[in-house]
């Protein structure tokens, strides 16, 4: 039977009504440790350069370079920390929602019926904080895939089971 009812725009489910859940606070540690490792490497490279370089020009401008790098590092860390609080997720009956980004805010929704497979991964660092990531793959280009980092391990396992059973049940 074919029906073609008019859709009442007010009545369909609204993305704004969804209460997004923030990811685990412990994930902030993971982000910060990663940043410290990265920037530590950059600073080390800079100082090694100072130690070994013979180039006078480089030595003259060394402290400017140092200043520029420091401003960049501080800015980057501040933005990362603020952006952390934008990382939120929700799972509805028919789709998965994930929002992130401070400067560029993105709210991605993947219908569960379009999920190809789900991957649960734990990096070494995340394991130290009992965290896990869920990666959701669709058939689209990489742009339509979705990964939620910084979930507590038990919750990640639960989401994985829930989505897997839904995906397999549908097909």
């Amino acid at each position, binding site marked *: 039977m074919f029906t073609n009812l008019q859709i009442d*725009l007010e009545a369909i489910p609204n993305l704004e009504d969804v209460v997004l859940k923030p990811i685990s606070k412990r994930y902030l540690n993971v982000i910060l440790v990663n940043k410290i490792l990265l920037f530590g490497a950059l600073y080390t490279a800079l100082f090694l350069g100072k130690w070994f370089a013979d180039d006078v020009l480089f030595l003259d401008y060394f402290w400017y370079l140092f200043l520029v790098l420091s401003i960049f590092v501080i800015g980057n860390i501040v933005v990362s920390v603020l952006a952390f609080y934008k990382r939120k997720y929700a799972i509805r009956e028919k789709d998965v929602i994930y929002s992130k980004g401070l400067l560029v805010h993105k*709210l991605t929704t993947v*219908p569960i019926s379009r999920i190809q497979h789900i991957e649960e991964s734990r990096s070494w660092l995340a394991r130290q904080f009992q965290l896990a990531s869920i990666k959701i793959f669709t058939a689209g280009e990489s742009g339509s895939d979705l990964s939620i980092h910084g979930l507590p391990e038990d919750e990640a396992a639960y989401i994985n089971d829930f989505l897997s059973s839904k995906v397999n049940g549908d097909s």
Partner: protein
Amino acid sequence: MVTADFSQPRRQSSKGILVIFGFKTFKFFKSFFVLFVAFGISIFQKKSFANFGIFNIVLIVIGLLLVILIISVLNYLNFKFYVKNEDFHLSTGILNKDNTIIPKSKIQNVYIKQNFLQQIINVVSVNIETAGDDKSEIEISALDKIQAKQLKELLFSKNKVSEGTQTETEDIEDDVFFRASLKRLFLEGISQNHLKSFLIIVSFIFGLYYEAKDYIKQLHIEEQFENSTIFNDEALFGLLVTNVVIALLFLFVSVLFSVVKTVVVNFNLEVVEHQKTVEINKGLFNKMSLSLTPSRIQNLEVKTNRIKRYFGLYRLSVKQAMVNKKQQKNFAIVALEKSQLDYLINRLLGAYDATTERQKPEFYYKRILWLKLSVLAVLLNIPAYFFLGTYFWAINIPLVLLMFTFVHYKYKKAYYLISEEHITIGSGFIDSVTNILEIHKIQSVRFQQTFFQKQQDIASIIVSTASKDVTIPYIKSAHAKTICNLLLYRVESQDRDWM
């Protein structure tokens, strides 16, 4: 017509040796191209290379060709395939033996292609594409045309049975729906965006120059060039004329390149309608036959421009899921008439309806375009200062005019339209590009907003299908949210498959 027997392990047509040999030789010479240029120049200059005379070099080349020939023969002998119990079997490899088994149901596409060499010896190659990664593509490089068609049908036969009742009807209704005449192809080539061809040529020349830089240096071209141009007042006028001539030459070559490329690639373009699929046949040196399955089509892209519209020329590109990137660009039908285009769109998408009112992005889009271009313009002023000295500001006059036309047309051509079943997005500057996708094939929906857009209450939506992401740019965020809700509702409420 003799039905070929594919149930027993068999080799390709014996002409396959030639094809494999041709491929391998071409590949070999291509990968050592620079080396050969070096050889050539050094022989040219000293009549010898690294103490080898010309005779020895010829011997070496013959030896290399012999080795390639032996490898080709071994390759041919070890290449066997057969179809048995709903599976396609293939064994290859000289030292490492590979056995590939593909269930018929996993075969996504079968293409028949014919390159120049294959045309001469009258064989075709059959490409079998499976779902999954790009590497799983299989090519049988030499088969008789009739056998290839039989193999294709055999590989698809099971799918038909499983899908429904029509099993034999497909062959009957082969109806050539569209055939592009040489004249229309020529017009298509002429009215193309020649800037693209120009860029291809320039990058090719630069690439060649870069690769062979060291060897060209040996020829002392630069010194000769410098000696022949002596600067004085008269020479300045000469220089100007030379530059104009060079520019005209480049323009001519670009146009010629566009036309030749269009004609060669699309020679004898044919669109054939089958029961379920639409088949494209085209090519002069590389003949190919591709089939489009409506259920697998994710995006359609229609391209035209002012001149083309005048001639009634439209180009339709089809983006299918599970097709590798290289193949994707071949799924284009050029030189269509408007009525044919409309018919094809309806055929491929099923009752395409674009009567809903077009909606425009907000004026914010214009502002962003201006902002981006201004940054570019400022950056362009810096090199201009070094070239033109104090008159550098003069470049801003044409630049501003160009920016103005760009922003005007870019905004004018941008629109979006959401109907019951489809999303249509228009864009383009010189070309008018129309992107169409079916709502039930959406894979994900993204609401995106930058920090600055948030102040203006503006947002964009990015809609992904299995083959492409499209953007509905810069609309009011409340409206964007409504659209997201609606699209998600449409996808999730109807239980339709995306493939």
